[in-house]
C-alpha cells in the first residue's frame, strides 16, 4: 500500500466515530431509497407480469342484460383486441360462524377452456365442474379469512332461492389484487367474497341463458381508450349499460396504482433529507480535517504531489465513508424492501413471489449518494489544495473575535460565564449553528412525519364513523322499493333508528368532462348519515339541486351555480339537467347528493328508496341480522365500521414496524448531527478547553461550555423540527392526495411530544459519548503542540 493510502486509512481510523455517524446517516437514506424503490419495482413488475399473463382487461362495463351476439359487435369497435362477456351477480351468503350476512360476487367462468380475458390463477383445488350444481372457485382473501379449504360449503341466497355452494378451488384474480367494494375505502375480506362459477350454472341460476350482463375488453397498444369507452357505452346503452370505465377507475387497479404513487413519494422525500444531512455532516467534518491538515497539504505539495493527487486523496477519504454507508444502506434497504413487500403481500395478492432487487435501483441509489456526498466536499477540497504551499505552512490566523451582537447589546454583563462563551461562539459562526440546528430539526421532523400516517388514519376513522356515518349497518335492497317498505323494518326488534336513501348510478357531465358516480338521495332527517365538511360542519342539502364532493367538482371543472347533465345508468336511463347548489369538502370519494324527494322528482318516479341506514341497540345485533337475512328485499347488509376495525388491526402492526424504522432513522440522524458537531467543536476548541482546565475549570464546567452549546441548539431545533415536520406532512398530504381520498393534515400532541423526546434522548446519548472525550482531554499534549 502506498504511503498516501496508509495516511488515508489512519486519518479515517482517527475520525472513526464521526465516520461511523456519517456513514450511518448515509446508510439510512440509501436504505429507505433502496427499500422503497425496490418494493415499488417489485410490485410494479409483479403487477405488470400478472396483468400480462392473465390478460387483465382494459375496459369494463356492467349492463342489465344483452344477448350474446352483442358481445361480438364489441369486437368491431376499432382498437378492441379481445372481448369477454360474462354474467356477474351479487348474492347474500350465510357464512358459518358469521352472524351478519356477507355478500358475494358471482362471476361466470367458461365451461371449458380459459376465458379470453381475466383468467384466474388457481392456487389449490380444481376448476368448478360445469355439470355439477353449486361448485365454485373462491378468491383467496375470503377463503383464508374463514379458513375455507376445497370441499367446504357455504349457503347463498341466489335469485331468491337458498343454495349450497361448494368451494372446489381457491384462486387469485388480476381483477381483485385487493378486494375493495365500491364506495368503501378498506377491504372487508370477512364479509365480501368473490366466486367464479361455470357459465352454464350461472345461466341456469339467474335465468340468463344466451345473455350476459358484464363485458370486459382489452385494447391494442396505442388505441384510444376514451374513444373505445364511448363506443362501448353507445353499444350497450340499449341493454342497460351502466357506463364503461377504463383501468384508471377500476378499484383494484386504482388502489395498487395509488400505493405505487405513495411508494414513489416515500422513496424521494426521506432519502433527500438523509442525504442532505449526510452531505452537510461530510462537509463539516472534511472542512475541519482540511483545516487541521493545512500544513500537511502544504508539505505534500512541496514534495511534488499535484493538487489533483491531493484532492483525490481527500475525496477518496470521503468516498470510503460514503462507500461504507452505501454498502450498509444497500443491504439494509434490501432487507427493508423485503419486509415492506411482505407487508404489501398481505393486502395485495399476487401469484408470484414478489421481491427482487433491481440492480439499477442499487446503482441509482449509490450514484445519488455519491453525488450528494461529494458535491459538498469538492469545493472545500479544491480551495484547500489551491493554496500556495508556502502560504499553508503558516498556521491559519487566529479566529476573529470581534465584539459580537451580544456584547454590543451589553447582554454579556448580565450573563454568567458559561452561557456567555456559548452565545459568543454561536454568534461568531451563525451559519454552522444554523445548519446544526437544521440537522437536528430534520431528525425531529422525520419522527413527526413517521407518526403522521397514524394520526391521519385515526382522525379519518373518528371522523367517518364518529361524525359522518354513525349508522351501525347499511341495508341495500335488490331494487328500489316504495318508501313505505321501511316502516315494516322499523318494527324489527333492536333497530333503534332508521334512515332511508335512494342511490342511482349516474354519469355526471359538465362541458367536455364527465364522471361516473353514485347519485345519492338523502332524507331530510340526517342523523345516522351526515354530510360534513372536513372541519366537521354540517352541509345543507337544499330542496333542489345537487351537492357534489369538492373532488368531483374539481374533476368536472365546475363551480357552484353551474348546471350539469345527469345521465342515469339504470332503469329507463333518463337524462336530466340540474344545477349544482353546493359542495361538500369531504375526505373521500366523488359522490353527488340530492334531497331524496328532489331526486325522486328528477327521476319522475314515485317515492322509492334503495336502502337504509340503521342503528342497532347494543346486544341486539345478532337477532337483527337474523331477521334481516330473512327479509326478501334485503340484498345485503354492510358493517363498515367492523370492517375497518379488522383492517386496522393488521394495519396497526405494520404501522408499528414503520414506526420502528422511523425512530431508528431519526435517532441515527440526531446522534449523527449532534455527535459530529460536538466532535468538531471539541477538535476546534480543544486547546481553549484544555487551557480552561489548566487554569482550574472542572471537567463539568468545561463540558457545560461545549455541550451547553449543543443543548441550546437542540432546544432551538425542536420547535424548528415541529415546523418542518408540519410542513413536510402538509406536502405529503397533498402529494398523496388521490381521487379516492384526501389525507387530512392532522398531527396529535403525542406525536410532537414523542419526536421531542427522542431527539432529546439522542442528544443526551451523543453528549455522553463526547463527554468521554472531554474527560480525556490531554492538557499537556494540547498545550505543547503548536497551532
Amino acid at each position: 500500500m502506498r504511503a498516501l493510502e496508509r495516511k488515508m486509512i489512519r486519518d479515517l481510523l482517527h475520525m472513526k466515530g464521526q465516520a461511523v455517524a456519517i456513514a450511518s446517516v448515509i446508510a439510512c437514506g440509501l436504505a429507505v431509497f433502496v427499500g422503497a424503490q425496490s418494493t415499488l419495482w417489485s410490485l410494479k413488475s409483479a403487477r405488470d407480469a400478472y396483468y400480462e399473463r392473465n390478460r387483465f382487461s382494459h375496459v369494463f362495463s356492467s349492463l342489465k342484460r344483452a344477448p350474446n351476439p352483442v358481445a361480438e359487435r364489441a369486437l368491431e369497435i376499432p382498437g378492441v383486441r379481445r372481448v369477454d362477456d360474462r354474467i356477474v351477480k351479487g348474492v347474500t351468503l350465510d357464512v358459518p360462524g358469521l352472524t351478519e350476512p356477507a355478500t358475494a360476487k358471482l362471476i361466470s367462468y367458461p365451461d371449458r377452456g380459459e376465458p379470453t380475458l381475466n383468467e384466474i390463477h388457481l392456487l389449490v383445488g380444481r376448476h368448478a365442474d360445469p355439470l355439477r350444481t353449486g361448485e365454485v372457485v373462491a378468491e383467496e382473501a375470503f377463503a383464508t379469512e374463514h379458513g375455507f379449504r376445497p370441499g367446504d360449503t357455504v349457503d347463498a341466497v341466489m335469485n331468491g332461492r337458498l343454495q349450497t355452494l361448494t368451494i372446489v378451488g381457491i384462486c387469485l384474480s388480476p381483477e381483485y389484487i385487493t378486494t375493495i367494494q365500491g364506495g368503501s375505502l378498506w377491504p372487508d375480506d370477512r364479509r365480501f367474497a368473490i366466486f367464479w362459477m361455470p357459465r352454464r350454472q350461472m345461466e341456469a341460476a339467474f335465468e340468463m341463458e344466451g345473455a350476459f350482463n358484464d363485458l370486459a375488453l382489452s385494447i391494442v397498444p396505442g388505441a384510444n381508450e376514451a374513444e373505445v369507452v364511448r363506443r362501448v357505452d353507445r353499444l350497450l346503452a340499449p341493454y342497460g349499460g351502466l357506463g364503461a370505465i377504463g383501468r384508471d377507475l377500476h378499484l383494484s387497479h386504482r388502489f395498487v396504482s395509488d400505493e405505487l404513487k405513495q411508494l414513489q413519494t416515500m422513496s424521494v422525500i426521506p432519502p433527500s433529507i438523509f442525504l442532505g444531512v449526510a452531505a452537510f455532516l461530510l462537509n463539516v467534518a472534511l472542512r475541519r480535517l482540511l483545516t487541521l491538515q493545512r500544513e500537511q497539504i502544504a508539505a505534500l505539495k512541496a514534495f511534488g504531489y499535484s493538487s489533483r493527487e491531493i484532492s483525490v486523496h481527500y475525496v477518496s477519504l470521503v468516498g470510503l465513508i460514503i462507500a461504507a454507508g452505501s454498502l450498509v444502506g444497500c443491504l439494509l434497504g434490501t432487507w427493508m424492501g423485503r419486509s415492506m413487500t411482505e407487508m404489501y403481500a398481505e393486502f395485495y395478492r399476487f401469484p408470484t413471489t414478489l421481491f427482487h432487487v433491481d440492480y439499477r435501483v442499487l446503482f441509482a441509489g449509490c450514484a445519488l449518494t455519491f453525488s450528494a456526498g461529494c458535491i459538498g466536499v469538492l469545493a472545500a477540497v479544491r480551495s484547500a489544495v489551491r493554496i500556495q504551499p508556502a502560504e499553508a505552512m503558516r498556521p491559519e490566523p487566529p479566529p476573529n473575535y470581534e465584539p459580537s451582537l451580544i456584547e454590543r447589546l451589553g447582554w454579556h454583563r448580565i450573563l454568567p460565564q458559561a452561557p456567555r462563551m456559548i452565545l459568543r461562539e454561536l454568534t461568531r459562526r451563525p451559519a454552522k449553528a444554523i445548519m446544526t440546528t437544521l440537522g437536528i430539526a430534520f431528525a425531529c421532523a422525520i419522527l413527526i412525519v413517521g407518526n403522521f400516517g397514524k394520526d391521519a388514519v385515526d382522525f379519518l376513522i373518528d371522523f367517518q364513523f364518529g361524525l359522518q356515518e354513525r349508522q351501525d349497518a347499511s341495508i341495500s335492497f335488490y331494487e328500489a322499493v316504495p318508501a313505505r317498505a321501511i316502516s315494516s323494518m322499523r318494527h324489527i326488534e333492536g333497530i333503534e333508528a332508521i334512515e332511508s336513501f335512494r342511490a342511482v348510478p349516474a354519469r355526471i357531465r359538465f362541458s367536455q368532462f364527465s364522471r361516473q358516480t353514485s347519485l345519492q338521495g338523502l332524507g331530510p332527517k340526517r342523523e345516522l348519515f351526515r354530510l360534513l365538511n372536513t372541519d366537521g360542519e354540517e352541509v345543507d342539502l337544499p330542496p333542489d339541486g345537487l351537492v357534489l364532493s369538492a373532488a368531483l367538482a374539481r374533476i368536472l371543472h365546475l363551480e357552484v351555480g353551474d348546471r350539469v347533465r345527469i345521465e342515469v345508468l339504470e332503469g329507463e336511463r333518463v337524462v336530466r339537467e340540474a344545477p349544482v347548489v353546493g359542495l361538500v369538502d369531504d375526505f373521500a370519494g366523488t359522490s353527488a347528493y340530492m334531497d331524496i324527494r328532489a331526486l325522486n322528482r328528477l327521476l319522475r318516479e314515485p317515492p322509492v328508496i334503495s336502502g337504509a341506514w340503521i342503528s342497532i341497540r347494543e346486544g341486539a345485533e345478532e337477532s337483527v341480522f337474523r331477521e334481516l337475512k330473512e327479509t326478501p328485499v334485503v340484498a345485503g347488509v354492510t358493517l363498515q365500521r367492523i370492517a375497518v376495525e379488522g383492517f386496522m388491526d393488521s394495519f396497526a402492526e405494520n404501522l408499528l414496524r414503520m414506526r420502528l424504522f422511523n425512530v431508528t432513522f431519526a435517532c441515527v440522524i440526531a446522534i449523527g448531527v449532534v455527535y459530529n458537531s460536538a466532535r468538531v467543536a471539541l477538535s476546534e476548541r480543544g486547546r481553549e478547553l484544555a487551557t480552561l482546565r489548566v487554569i482550574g475549570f472542572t471537567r463539568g464546567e468545561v463540558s457545560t461550555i461545549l455541550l451547553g452549546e449543543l443543548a441550546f441548539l437542540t432546544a432551538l431545533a425542536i420547535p424548528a423540527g415541529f415546523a418542518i415536520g408540519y410542513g413536510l406532512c402538509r406536502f405529503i398530504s397533498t402529494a398523496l392526495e388521490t381521487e379516492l381520498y384526501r389525507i387530512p393534515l392532522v398531527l396529535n400532541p403525542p406525536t410532537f411530544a414523542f419526536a421531542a423526546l427522542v431527539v432529546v434522548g439522542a442528544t443526551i446519548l451523543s453528549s455522553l459519548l463526547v463527554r468521554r472525550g472531554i474527560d480525556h482531554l490531554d492538557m499537556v499534549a494540547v498545550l505543547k503542540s503548536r497551532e
Partner: protein
Amino acid sequence: MDSPPEIQAVYEAHDLTKVYHMGEVSVHALRGVDIHLYEKELIVLLGHSGSGKSTLLNILGGLDIPSSGEVFYRGNRMSDFSESELTRYRREHVGFVFQFYNLIPSLTARENVALVTEIANDPMKPEDALALVDLDERMDHFPSQMSGGEQQRVAIARAIAKQPDVLLCDEPTGALDLETGIMVLEAIDNVNRELGTTTAVITHNSVISDMAHRVIRLRDGQIESIVENEEVKPADQLNW
C-alpha cells in the same frame, strides 16, 4: 553571465521582490534580491528573523511566487512553469527541509520517507535514507513518539531520499539543542559532500556559516553581503 564557465548556475534570481498584503498594510518581505546558486555548493543564508530568508527559499523551491523579478532554474524561467511543471519540478528536483519538520503525524518515519520516494524518479530506499541520518532503529515510530531532533532527521532523510538536485533547508536546527543540531547539520553536510547536492541552509546562527562555501546575509529583504569561505569546516568542527 558572471559565473565561471566550468561551474553552471543552478539558480539565477534577478531583482526579486515579494510583497504580502495583509488588509491595509503591505509587508515587503523581499526588496530586490539578486542571487546565484552554483552546482554542488553549500550556501548558508543568514539574517535576523523577518529579514526574508524563508520567503527567498520558498520562491527558489517553487513553493511561492515572487511579486516581481525572475528566477531561472538551470536556465529555465520559473515563472513560465505551468502548474503541472511546477509540481514536477518540486517532485523531481527539490528536497525541502522545513523548520517545523512537517512530518505527516499519521505516518511512521519510514512511511514519511516513502511518501516522497514513491513519487520520485530514482530514489534511495527509505531505509537507506534513514540510515544516513542514523535513524535505522526508529523507522517504525510515529512522529509523536520521537524527539524534535529525531523528527528533524526524518525530515532530512525524507528530503534527501529522492536524491534531489537541490536541497533547501529552512532553519533545520532552529528548534534543536546543540548536540542534535550538530547531528542534523552533519547529515546535511554529508549529503552535500557525498552526493554533490547543491544545498542552501537558512539559519540565524552565524556559527553554522563556517561549514558553507558561501555565506549570504540578508537584511530587511535585501542582500547585505556575500562572503566566500576560504576554508570549509565539517559540521563537527564548528565552534559553538
